[in-house]
């Protein structure tokens, strides 16, 4: 009945705007080799591989079979999981279920993207219904602007409140050698950056990034056999509720249905793990915040504070380094966004934090860490990682 699962190896490429020096398989291989070295393993020790990205960015069909030279899945089981922006966390959850099922002891999870080879906005636009959505809707920015507008109307939050989040994430990113953007921004810089779709400005948005991430998931039966201390998966859950752009229900008057996918997924996993006060209980959070307003709205949806309370709490520094629950010590998605890798990088950063290996960006004494993935049509994946082995497998 379900085994406990830990992460024992981490690998990722330095996230960059373009990696013309490598092809996709080579990019993947950099992360895979680093993860295997970290776990003191070779390719031969891996029982199965789970991989994910977004097809239309690189234009490669059947990425699982294509990847074999880079992923090391030759004569092994390999499976592709893909759910849009949530792909990286979906891959992590996939690797979790592979190991928890009892069928595999050592599973390699890989997320990657080479956005420099893609028309990112063009590809994202095709996610939406060809008749109803596409003619009025382009890419990710417009949908996020819709959300930001609703949030501002409901709470009275300002563009400056959001800019604080963008500044925080970039400041944190300065401590992370793997981050793509290393820029010291001020609120004024964000406010003066050009509008992409009001109220979202260039400074509020994530970049497009080339990068890969690989993690080694292992079962409780072998978790002590590795050089690094295991980071345990305490619980996972997801909700992918909506199919159309017109589905998001954002009642600005009542604030009802704030971000139901994130609310439901986090509520499920918080209950499993016994989280009643996330702000107090989590030591660190790596959240998929694709743009600045997400840093406000999403933490309210997860219950870090009341609705409308995020701007004040954020400006008070609760989520800064040294704050009550530092958010995105890595610099987060606003510093690097190789989309298929991004969710997995959140899990990787939580692992490093729990293992005490996050160098300049280390939060002291991390016991409990939260990772999320965002994507699709306001979809959410949520994972909780911990330093202590859980009492039982909790899914």
């Amino acid at each position, binding site marked *: 009945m379900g085994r406990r699962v830990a992460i024992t190896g981490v690998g990722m490429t330095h996230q960059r705007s373009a990696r013309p020096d490598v092809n996709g398989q080579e990019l993947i291989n950099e992360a895979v080799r680093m993860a295997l070295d970290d776990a003191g393993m070779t390719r031969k020790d891996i029982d199965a591989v789970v991989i994910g990205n977004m097809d239309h960015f690189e234009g490669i*069909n059947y990425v699982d079979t*294509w990847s074999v030279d880079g992923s090391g899945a030759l004569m092994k089981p390999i499976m592709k999981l893909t759910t849009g922006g949530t792909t990286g966390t979906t891959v992590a959850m996939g690797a979790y279920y592979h190991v928890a099922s009892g069928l595999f002891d050592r599973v390699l999870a890989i997320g990657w993207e080479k956005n420099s080879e893609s028309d990112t906005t063009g590809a994202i636009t095709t996610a939406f219904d060809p008749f109803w959505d596409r003619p009025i809707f382009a890419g990710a920015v417009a949908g996020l602007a819709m959300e930001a507008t609703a949030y501002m109307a409901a709470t009275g939050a300002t563009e400056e409140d959001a800019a604080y989040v963008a500044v925080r994430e970039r400041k944190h990113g300065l401590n992370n050698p793997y981050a793509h953007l290393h820029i010291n921004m001020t609120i004024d810089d964000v406010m003066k950056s050009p509008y992409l779709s009001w109220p979202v400005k260039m400074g509020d948005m994530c970049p497009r990034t080339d990068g890969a991430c690989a993690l080694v998931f292992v079962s409780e039966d072998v978790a002590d056999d590795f050089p690094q201390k295991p980071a345990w998966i305490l619980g996972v859950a*997801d909700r992918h509720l909506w199919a159309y752009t017109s589905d998001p229900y954002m009642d600005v008057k009542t604030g009802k249905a704030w971000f139901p996918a994130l609310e439901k997924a986090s509520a499920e996993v918080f209950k499993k793990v016994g989280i009643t006060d996330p702000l107090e209980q989590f030591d660190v959070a790596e959240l998929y915040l694709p743009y600045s307003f997400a840093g406000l709205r999403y933490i309210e949806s997860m219950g870090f504070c009341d609705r409308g309370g995020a701007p004040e709490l954020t400006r008070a520094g609760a989520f800064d380094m040294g704050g009550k629950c530092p958010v995105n010590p890595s610099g987060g998605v606003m510093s690097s966004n190789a989309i298929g890798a991004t969710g997995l990088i959140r899990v990787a950063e939580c692992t490093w934090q729990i293992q005490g290996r996050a160098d300049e960006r280390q939060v002291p004494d991390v016991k409990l860490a939260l990772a999320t993935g965002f994507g699709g049509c306001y979809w959410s994946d949520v994972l909780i990682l911990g330093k202590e082995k859980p009492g039982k497998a909790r899914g």
Partner: protein
Amino acid sequence: MEPVAIVGVGMTEIRRERKADGYPDLVYEASRAALDDAGMTIDQVDNVVTISNDFFDGRTISSMAIQDACGSYDKNVSTVEGDGTFGAFYGLMRILSGSFGTTLVCAHHKGSESVMPLITNAMFDPIYARSLGIDAVTSSALQARAYMDRFGVTEEQCALVSVKNHGNAFANPVAQLPLELTVEKVMSSPYIADPIKLLDCCPISDGASAVILASEKRAKKITKKPVWVKGVAHCSTSYHLGDRNLYCVCALREASKKAYGMAGIGDPAKDIDLVELYDAFTYMELMWLEGLGFCERGEGGKLTESGKTARGGELPVNASGGCLSGNPVLVAGLNRIIECALQVRGNAGEHQVDGVKTALAHGINGPCGQSHCVWVLGGEK
């Protein structure tokens, strides 16, 4: 592996073009059918695995459009991009993890809205291979030729598979292409890519299907006829065609060895009563039968000539008509599982084979069967 069972199955009819229906409509039809088959409501489904491919659907995040249709609202849900046999495998693991008691697995495909040569060309290396114009058909032709040259298998032996499977399709109302053929008719059909002729190829198809898997505890409450998963495994070989001996079946051998080990199958030819395998082209049925260990290498043609693989033979292969009689890609592997489940339950209707206790379903991913997934299903735990 703890016992997990198939408790509900649903398939749409496979047709050349389901013009009036978008793919979410097909998914709804199949999921609804699977729930009805199991006598379940959507509330009793604990989680969902959808199977789709952004290229075939012409949409990024192709699973987004079917969240309503498959009933995943407010459930844990994930998406496998690959053949249905792989998606069902993930659905199985999610139950084995202890997190869920039931999984609905659904797959869809609208070949009528796809441009197959372009989409399957995108499987190949963008710099070295794509510009050759290679696609699923032409790469398979290379494999067929390599296989036939190595083992002396003839085009006539391949043609027999077409005659058999299209003939079987007459008894299966779901099948798209029942045809009354002879070896001569197949042999005189035009070459698409030598040695593959028109009647060696699967058709382009629209369709969807769904399977509901359940833990032992839940399965016993849901149905009196659970079909148990006895063994399942998958394996991939190399990517570049030039890195492979195309006649080799090493990945299939590895996957079947593992699945047989789990299922306690010593001699597949004796222990397995029926096979549903991925016959996108006629030669594949022969090659995969060899890879699965039903005969020696190179003997697949003779096995077929002997009549053993006919619906009335000792080892019926693709009694449903197989992919040759309808090939909604991705759905195709899930349909192989469903056909096996129906046979084990004794619910296969006109194409029912007597006494099927243990059945084998098989699916492939990637060019020329680069990756294989093998399922062994049975009526007994």
